[in-house]
């Protein structure tokens, strides 16, 4: 019997750290002995850069456009520790339809049964920003990824995007779509009193879990400047340890769930509550609940 390929989709607000986190996750899983493919679903085509010394690779859609015929092997490049790197690519900003591009790219690889041929253990999709249209929901639709993780900071806009993603997952959950594995908290300041608490509270309210708290760290920046993941560039750093721990949790993760997204109204009310609390914390005027009554 063919082994089951674990397919994971990583979503999150633009610039939140999806590609950084995904690449470190891929690298750590690969170090653990798994065969991993990282599939960038973003017209920028920069998802796998730090797995390949900062270099760009030809994208699926470029190859399709230029050659008319597409051979999946031409779009697969190996990076750090033999990780297979693929970039979907897409149109230049402001023209065409990036969503349709992602649908096409994912379908092309699936049709050519390349994941089975390469005997992969993991396929990790790094998907652009918000779920703005049907195309960006493709990895969470039936038969692609099984698990979705969302990268979020404690910023309201990041949480807003995560909540939107949860709505998308909920929508497809009855028709065999991917379910939510959990939240990967990124850029958490270790000394902040409330950042962790905000993410924890959001996860609790939406019926999900936090997979890992990743601190904001200069190590990540340094590694990126060398065109590498933290795992490759500074394998002994504390930050690398955090990513390895994340990989172990993802590796052990089996059951994803349908999340319980907040309505827009509830989300706003929730954010307003937190903003009051943060103000109070920062002005040193921490009122107890008893005082408010």
């Amino acid at each position, binding site marked *: 019997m063919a082994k089951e390929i674990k397919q994971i989709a990583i979503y999150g607000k633009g610039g939140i750290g999806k590609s950084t986190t995904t690449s470190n996750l891929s690298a750590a899983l690969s170090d653990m002995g798994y065969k991993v493919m990282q599939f960038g679903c973003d017209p920028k085509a920069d998802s796998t850069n730090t797995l390949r010394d900062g270099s760009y690779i030809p994208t699926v859609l470029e190859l399709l*456009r230029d050659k008319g015929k597409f051979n999946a092997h031409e779009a697969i490049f190996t990076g750090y520790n033999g990780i297979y790197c693929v970039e979907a690519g897409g149109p230049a900003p402001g023209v*065409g339809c990036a969503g349709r591009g992602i649908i096409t790219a994912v379908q092309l690889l699936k049709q050519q049964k390349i994941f089975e041929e390469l005997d992969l253990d993991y396929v990790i999709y790094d998907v652009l920003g918000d779920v703005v249209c049907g195309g960006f929901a493709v990895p969470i639709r039936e038969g692609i990824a099984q698990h979705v993780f969302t990268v979020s900071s404690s910023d309201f806009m990041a949480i807003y995007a995560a909540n939107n993603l949860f709505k998308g997952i909920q929508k497809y959950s009855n028709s065999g779509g991917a379910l939510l594995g959990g939240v990967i908290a990124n850029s958490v300041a270790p000394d902040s009193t409330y950042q962790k608490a905000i993410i924890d509270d959001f996860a609790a309210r939406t019926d999900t879990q936090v997979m890992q708290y990743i601190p904001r760290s200069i190590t990540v920046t340094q590694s990126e400047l060398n065109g590498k993941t933290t795992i490759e560039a500074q394998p002994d750093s504390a930050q690398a340890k955090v990513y390895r721990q994340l990989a172990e949790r993802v590796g052990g993760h089996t059951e994803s769930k349908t999340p319980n997204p907040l309505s827009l109204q509830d989300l706003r009310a929730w954010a307003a509550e937190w903003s009051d609390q943060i103000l109070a914390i920062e002005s040193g005027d921490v009122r107890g609940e008893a005082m408010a009554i």
Partner: protein
Amino acid sequence: MAICDKPIERPRFSCMLGGVLATTGALPRTVPIIHGAQGCGGSLAQGILLGGYYGTGYAGSGGMPSTNISESEVIFGGEEKLREEIKGVFEVMQGDLFVVSTACMTDIIGDDAKAVVDSLRPLPKPVIFLESGGFKGNSYYGYGRLIEELFLQYIPISTKKNLKAVNLLGLVPAYDPFFRGDLAELKRILNLLGIEVNTFVTSDQTQENLLKAGEASLNIILSRVYGVEAAKTIKESHDIDYLVTDLPIGAKATENFARLIADRLEISKNVVDPLLAAEIKNYYSFIDRATDVIADTDFQNYAVVVANATQALPYARYLDNEIGWIPTHIFITDDLDEDQEAAIRSAFGEIEFETRPDLVFETDTFKIQQYIEQNTPQFLADEYYPTISPAFVLGSTIERRLAEVLKGNFLSVSYPIINRIIISKGYAGFRGGLNLLEDLIGTQLAGR
């Protein structure tokens, strides 16, 4: 034939692009350029043929150039393909005017047709463009938008108005299957009164008619709903007044129509009266001879009219007011918004009927039949009932089935018409009224 209990809706119009293409194909020496997938041009060419086999003409129907975009353009954008297509069209096709029309896909992905056309200017011939993705509306809407864009992008604004010139608008090529005959007859009548007429879409028209349309002092819209928005825009852009009226069929309606226009253009009664008197005399001299067979044949019928918002009321009015039939039902088959429905209701209210018919807005063919069956005692298990008999159905070719159910006769007058070819025949005006009478009696005599 068993009654199908799962209705399969049979369309009575196509998409916005369909109306734009049918109209473009009817304009003098005008070439459409479709920016869309190949299925658009292909299927819409077929759709145009359903208007009584309204064929290709100069560059319409099967002769329409198209960018035929495919997946690659959907993803990366199709502007480059459009640019190449326009250049290519200028190499192989001659025309006096070119109309770039986008389709659903290219609108969805946001291709900027205007920017492409503008970047290619100056072009050897005038080119206009419009966003006509099918999802924006139906073919009648497409007609109105094209007329609007013709004025905005092509027809020069003229401050000097010709007080005796009008544009006759509102009939949609192919989708109003008798548009050519109807417009030709109304033009003939207005010409008699000394009025110059631009129709844009009949075969006598040249680019000259388009280019001087801005000098007209009146836009006559022969539809209560289609072309009305265009007329409002043109009032703003070209300062041309407009008049919304019904398509006149038969002597009374046509006389009223002619007088309405003459009044509006301040043409003296002394001119109008003798001209109309001659027309009317001529009309009834033909009717006169037909009365023999009418009297012999028990010719009076109950009628059901199934047609679009432009034609349905005029046909019903003709049947009642001009030839004394009893229209029992008027079904309007296009998908109208509230305002449009209100416009039709109010026009309906103005028509005098001996017995008021039921006015029903219904797009679903099966439900039209169902409506009659469920609301007419004849189809209920009543012992004494008034019947719709003898019945006559005026509708599209789809209504042949309804005529069978009513055990009545049938004449195709509205889109789609595939059981006969329509060349120059029209039902509007004096001559059209006679044509219609001829066809209504002829149908009943056909079995002899």
